């Protein structure tokens, strides 16, 4: 998709949940449960998303065209398993990058002001 005129910065800042979910989908094709697990793993267990919140966000991200459903690799029926998987769209990727950049800049600013100390610790 051509991205002329799409201003990803207009959507910043992202809510932490949106950001985590978009990050989880970067370069991956995941179904809902896998997204939950990935977010939990990536945040070392600090962020947990329940299914209700997850699908509300997914609904919103789908409507925003930041993510899309991807075709399953095969048509094998898998009972009791989430069937739909999601991937980032170009727009979604742009937004998540913009947010990451914003965070990086914010971090750099904080470092420069010495809030985080020399070592950049927590």
């Amino acid at each position: 998709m051509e991205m002329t005129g799409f201003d990803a910065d207009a959507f910043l800042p992202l809510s932490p949940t949106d950001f985590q979910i978009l990050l989880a989908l970067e370069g991956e094709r995941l179904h809902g449960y896998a997204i939950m697990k990935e977010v939990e793993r990536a945040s070392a267990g600090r962020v947990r998303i329940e299914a209700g919140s997850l699908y509300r966000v997914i609904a919103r991200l789908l409507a925003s065209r930041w993510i899309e459903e991807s075709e399953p690799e095969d048509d094998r029926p898998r009972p009791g398993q989430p069937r739909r998987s999601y991937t980032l769209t170009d727009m979604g990727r742009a937004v998540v990058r913009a947010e990451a950049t914003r965070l990086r800049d914010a971090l750099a600013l904080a470092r420069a002001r010495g809030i985080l100390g020399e070592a950049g610790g927590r």
Partner: protein
Amino acid sequence: MSACDLPSGPGEESPGRFSRFLASAYRSLLFLYPQAFRRAFGSEMSAVFECQLQEVNVRPLGRIASNAATLWVFLAAALNLTVTAGTERLRSSMAPGGIPGGRSNPGVSDIPDPGEAAPASPDPWRPRMRWSSGGERGSGWLRQDLGHALRLARRQPGFTAVVSLTLALGIGANTALFSVLHGVLLSPLPYPDADEIVLIWEHQTTYGWTHNGFPAAPVREYRERNQAFQAVGAFAHISSTLTGEGDPERLSAQVVTHEVLEILGAGPEVGRLLLPGDEIPGQAPVVVLGHGFWQRRFGGDPEVVGRQITLDGEPVTVVGVLNKGFRPIQGNPDLWAPLALSGEAWADWRNHFLFAVGRLREGVSLDQGTADLLVLAHQLQQENPKDYAGALVTVESLREATVGAVTVPLWMMMAAAGLVLLIACANVANLYLSRGLAREREFALRVTLGAGRRRLLHLLTTESLVLILPSGLLGVGLALAGLRVLLALEPGRLPRVEEIGLHPWVLLFSAGITLCSSALFGAVPAFRAARTNLAGSLKEAGSRFTQSSGPRRLKSSLAVVQMTLAILLLAGAGLLTRSFIRLQAVDPGFRVENILQARLSLAGGQYREPEQIVAFLDGLQERLTGDPSVSGMAAVSSPPVSMTPQIWLHIEGREPEGDQPPVVSRVFATSGYFDLLGLALLEGRLFDEGDRMDQPRVAVLTRSAAERHWPGESPIGKGIRIGNPDSPSLEVVGVVSDLRQYGIRHRPYPTAFIPFSQATPREFTVMIQAPMGPGEALGSLKSALGELDSTLPLYQIRTLDEVMGADVAEPRFAMFLAGVFGVAAMVLAAVGIYGVLAYTVSQRTHELGIRLALGAGRQGILQLVLRQGLSLAGMSLALGLPGAFAFARLMDSFLFEVGPADPLTFALLALSVLTVALVACVVPAARAAGLDPVGAMRRE
């Protein structure tokens, strides 16, 4: 790899009943979402939830820990679901439009593509704004209204406390009773395909006994000749003395054919269960231990299998232990032994000691199974006209047999709790209504300033949620405490007590009633508010003089409804109380005070001959004589209020009138028994030293037995036979006063006493007159017994007082519960009436002031208010009394010597309703009469 891409684990392939239940509960919760959202994501969400459950199940946890973890996952998911569903509904109601569901949702195509729209428009459509605008507006409202509601709750602590407590009580009572109802009645029985399992009894039509035991012969026939059953097994209850390891102990046991444990789906924890081969007489005796007994007595040692234990002096081999989850039917035996009957014993038609359990063939209904056995019963009657006259069968589903007796009482209690909740709700609705009316101006102002109906609804629902959610939590807490009290007071007759708890369904139920109440109280005043005539309300605010009577009428109706419901409950409580008082006043026919009783069994090797048993009792008597703590001793086969066999009575020289001879209760007793219980000798003599084995056999009858069989004449000197027609003849030597052998609620039954020394049963009750108290007497009895034979356990040690107390424990419990509900209902209803009157007086202050100023007497004003209160009570009585009468007829079977239309109860009821109403009127009436006319008119 599993479906959810989880590492394989031990529990993965079997999700377990609990998980399956939670998964279906989660699926039902999905209905909280708006339809479009549910269609788009519902199945995905439930799949994700199942993956979460699977993740818990693959963890190597114990069963309890795993269930707890599963429940935790469910609670977190369900809470999240409820909250997001609420937000989603709010969003969808405010921002109507398609829910994007990916390709499947056609609504998506209507949404312009932001990528294309962007260059064309300077103000590109911002998807996030569109999506969150609704949400943010909603959460903005939520934040705003939540803050408002919390401030309001803090500002009116009285209102907050009354509403929260009232509802918490209602919710707590309902949660507690629903958890009982759920555990006992609604949850499935813990057996595989429990619907197929039935209990089979002999129905002895001659005596109207529907739940009689079978002799062995018909059981054999039913077992072999039926068409409708996969299997029929027989069992009997016995008790046995365990000696040799630690203290001797009396154990309860079931002797069973191997089918019984198979039908119940039992499995072994260790070792094996019973096999058909164990039932062949002459085999080395074996037993299977119950899990609880195994834990208690053998510390759960698996090495016990193969060991020999000593039961009634005989060595018996333990072959296995039943698994932990197994729930026995009919009692709680410590061990199971094979029913090893000889061919001769299987041909017996007389000794009714067997019970039968069957499993219906697949697809065969209970009625079909019953019909099959009834056809067989008629055949058996024809084949054995002498032995099997009048005998049919009763077939009961296991569920009916287990919980049938408590089904109606439990539903009645649940209904009572439901009524209390309704009354509580009516009270809260009334309070809300008053506040809603008082806030009419505020609402009018809000509407004028642009708040829509939905906005008002949101505000009021939030307000009531803030009040009611804590009530729900408090209610569940109260339910937990209440359950503990309930189960502690419960007289031990409730089946399946171990299943009672705050099961997820129970919590769902509480959440349901909480949310319904909250929606009700939020919505009703809000709709009233939304209907408010703006200009009218704002204008009217200046004067209460023109207040319409509409709200007052609504509030009055609510109060009348409350009081009517309370009358129903109080009538039930009153009748049960009256009936309990009647019960307490009944003379049992025997002395109850200072009597200690304990059961003994001489089923060991050294008591084979009757003389040995007589010698044992003489020895015991001798050791206790002269002991100051024992002033009398007797032995009896069946003490008062115990299972007492009813046995054929043949009168010599007389043919029985019907097919079957009449029956009497048969009691073996020593000569001291009559004195000990204070039974009066009416005629002839009691037993004496001379009534020994080698002397002529004698019997003493109770008055009712004498009057029934020898009306108008004396039975002394007559010959009777008890049991079989060929049993030894007994001479009636005496008549004693009647006693209520089967408990205080049952009329005295004709009874025949036979001297212990001429019958010598091996198991009996020792009764002791204990003038210094039961503790002392028990000490003496134990030491005397220790000197005689230290291998004998004493069991069922009780005072006769305790026995009599237990006999009326059920009606006492029923009275207690009904009383709690009735009084709670009446207090709530009184608060309701008070609320209406207080409101009316405050609304009419101006009018009352004018009346006073124009010369109306204070007494007149007082009467005005009292009349209003009493007319509310009168209306409630007019509605409630007929209702209570109808309601009471349902309870007829729980009443004792009190009719459902008991005039005294209903008169007292009417009186107390009027009194309570009067008390509720006093404060508002006094306030009205004490008004300062000038001040009242100047106000507003």
